[in-house]
């Protein structure tokens, strides 16, 4: 009972130390070279190229790819003629707190890169290796299905 003040103060001090510990992760940047490792297998669903008499064709392709972390990335690509008009994410492959955080930042970066490059030949995002690899692979498969590039 005499030691109570010591015990209480050291508990408080320990708590302050532990609670003030900050986790960090490197900020995401566009890499200069695309990562070569692809960690998943591709499982595709069929695309629907529509043939029509008009000069522009509208096509939609979807693809699902396993990420190396075991969850699925699923993209839907919309193209008009040979121009990619939209890439939407159906599933972004997050399955835990860290990937959730990473993917919410990395995916928009990959998206804008792909739209401006109009292909799947894009630089990955460093700090989001698996997401980038799976995204690129998924995008390429979807584009192949609708016959672009």
């Amino acid at each position, binding site marked *: 009972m005499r030691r109570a003040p010591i015990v209480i103060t050291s508990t408080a001090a320990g708590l302050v130390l*532990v*609670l003030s510990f900050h986790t960090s992760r490197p900020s995401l940047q566009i890499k200069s070279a695309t990562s070569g490792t692809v960690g998943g297998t591709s499982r595709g669903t069929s695309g629907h190229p529509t043939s029509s008499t008009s000069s522009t064709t509208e096509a939609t392709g979807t693809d699902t790819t396993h990420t*190396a972390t*075991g*969850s*699925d990335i699923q993209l839907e690509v919309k193209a008009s003629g040979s121009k990619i008009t939209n890439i939407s994410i159906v599933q972004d492959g997050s399955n*835990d707190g860290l990937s959730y955080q990473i993917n919410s930042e990395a995916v928009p970066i990959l998206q804008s890169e792909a739209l401006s490059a109009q292909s799947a030949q894009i630089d990955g995002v460093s700090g989001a290796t698996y997401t980038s690899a799976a995204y690129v692979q998924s995008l390429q498969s979807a584009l192949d299905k609708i016959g672009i590039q």
Partner: protein
Amino acid sequence: MMDGTEMQSIPPTVPARRQPRPNHRVVDAAAVAVGLGLGACVALAVTAETKGALSAPGGLATFGGRLAGLTGTYLLLIMLLLVARIPVIERTVGQDRLLHWHRRLGQWPIYLLTAHAVLITFGYAEQAKTGAWHEFTILVGSYADVLMAIVGFGLLVTAAVTSIRAARRRIRYETWWTIHLYVYLGLALAFSHQLANGASFVGHPLTRALWVALWVATAGTVLVFRVVLPVARSAWHDLRVVGVHEEAPGVVSIVCHGRNVEGLVVAGGQFFQWRFLARGMWWQAHPYSLSAMPRSPYLRVTVKATGDHSRRLTRLPIGTRVAIEGPYGAFTRHARNTNKVLLVGVGVGITPIRALLEDMDPWVDVTVVIRASSAEHLIFRDEIRSLVTNRGGQLHELVGSRRAHPLDQRHLRRLVPDIAQRDVYVCGPGDFGDALVAASRRLGVPDNRIHREQFAF
């Protein structure tokens, strides 16, 4: 100064309308809920996986780690609830049995949470194609609140290790109790990393909400029944010591005066945790049985001076305020299954027997056996004799050591020939109680008719 005999001249308080009756259906329902909850935790772990995830590198280890984490945490919360002193559960099962279950359950959450830490580290390491130690540093450095969880886990393990019988014998009760209190802090520290990182919770608002609800419900239950209710009850009854009286050498009765004592819902044989708010005593609470039914506005407890604290009670200043917690205990007239009872009290164990005798339903046939090493230690001899005479029961007063009156199978059969038709209530030192229970069983008393009050928890 008020003493026991003065108090006894007051007529007993009319029993309160609400009685602390055991409710086995509620306890059964609680057991079912606990089982369902455990199943739900396993289901949470399973549904967080996809077939691809399990076959990916590190997938199986990560799944095992998640399963271990969910179930280990759930069992910890159940352990908290077991000792939360929920009134309906406590008066049906009894605090000693609840503590026994708490102790037996104790090691499993520790094993499961250790497995959780190891499996998650190795699983993530395999998936990231890196070494386990490197992955560990990533977990601590990049994943939210993991360091807090590790510190919390350390506190849990310390509390568990110091509770092993071999360790407990070596450390003082106060030290053990303080270390054990850190379990609350450990659990609080570990909570946030579950929601921030758990695969079952990230991006799944419904399971998140359910998990949070489980924690809030547990915390709320503990807070209400271990803090709020006792504090409120103590303030409401405003008990103060008005008499300290020696019943026998080393045995003292303390009479307290309170407000609204007739509203105290207590059965004979029950006990309270008593906290005497005097210098050097206010930070300890000890369980003592009432040695008589309440006689508004008075309550009486009788204590044997064995340790530092109980010895101090003999010099308790009149007017000392008292905080109580309870009433607790399943050792009541409600526990009986027949209309004939045998009450056995040895030494200071006579205390709850005396209260139980007074509270026993009038149509019940009672046989009372009390034993003490000397005549002066046969406390409440006169009170018990007059209670038994007034209701036409049988009384056996045994003076002498265990050798003189062994209360073994042969002796019991002679004293109480129809013991097999009675409910047997036993109170006394541990080894005596064990022997008597064994003897009763051999004489044909079924387990559900043997009731014990154990002072040493």
